[in-house]
């Protein structure tokens, strides 16, 4: 990857900085936001999804993904994060959506489980950090793939909260 191709325009950079800072702060919200849950929202096609911000370690731009033989199709391959080698799960496949080649707006959300396990999750675009009262998050009726654990209203639409544990439980035997 050349430096030039990785250079975004400055407006997107500051937006990512804001997101990254929000992610780094994790669950420790300001006092007035004490009761609010923070969700990192992103898109798959035009549908909004989210993961809890405290599970997000970082968000990285798309970079070379090396395919790994003998891995289930849902794992797109591995990336290098400052020398750390991390598997990237294609969320489109996990959600049963037709996979596409990553675009300029694609991002890899690096999530952790709090016990040192990390994984990359490939999404179409990252949008914002949403602050919502915990009681606005409602468990969802069982979805086809069991990947969505709850729904949260944002204006007129609903954001689907991803069950990361479920999404990252991939059957190695395909």
């Amino acid at each position, binding site marked *: 990857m050349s430096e030039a191709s990785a250079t975004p325009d400055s407006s997107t950079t500051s937006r990512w900085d804001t997101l990254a800072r929000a992610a780094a702060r994790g669950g420790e919200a300001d006092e007035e936001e004490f009761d609010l849950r923070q969700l990192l929202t992103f898109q798959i096609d035009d549908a909004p999804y989210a993961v809890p911000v405290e599970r997000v370690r970082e968000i990285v731009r798309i970079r070379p993904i090396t395919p790994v033989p003998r891995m289930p199709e849902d794992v797109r391959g591995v990336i290098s994060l400052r020398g750390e*080698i991390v598997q990237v799960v294609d969320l489109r496949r996990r959600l049963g959506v037709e996979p596409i080649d990553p675009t300029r707006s694609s991002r890899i959300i690096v999530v952790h489980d709090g016990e040192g396990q990390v*994984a990359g999750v490939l999404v179409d675009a990252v949008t914002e950090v949403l602050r919502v009262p915990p009681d606005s998050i409602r468990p969802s009726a069982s979805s086809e793939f069991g990947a969505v654990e709850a729904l949260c209203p944002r204006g007129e639409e609903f954001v689907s909260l991803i069950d990361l544990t479920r999404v990252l439980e991939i059957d190695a035997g395909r």
Partner: protein
Amino acid sequence: VYVDSLEGRGTTIAMTLPITLAIIQSLIVAVGPQRFAIPLNAVLETLLIDPSEIQRSEGRELLNLRGEALVLRRLSSEFELATAATREEKLFAVVVGMGDLRVGLLVERLDGQQDTVIKPIQGPIQSIRGIAGATELGDQDPVLVLDVSALVEDALRRREAA
């Protein structure tokens, strides 16, 4: 880390590094666009072979290596890799060994030797047969490191089964 100090003699500091942090020399090979690293300590020799030299026996491919039958494994079929090469093109056989066992891994290109640091692959899939880990070559480009002992074992176990 182990420190041994003798007055007037000096100090010995010994540090034991796990394999995942040790720098080892690897041979970089390629099939189509994908590169792999083979730890050099497992490589005995490399040969440029013509497909006409490859003999077949019970579905296996063999090479007469100075009078010995060397079992060949195509990395492309082993790992279901897309390959642009036709069966007529010359190939490289990387002869790898584990103890007395020898297997020739067939690849399309040799891309030289590199210092590599083998890192574990983190993520939902805990282990992949035949892959020992990965290393970063150049800028953000992960290259998989082959687990030679697993590949040799698989190749020869299939031979016994055949």
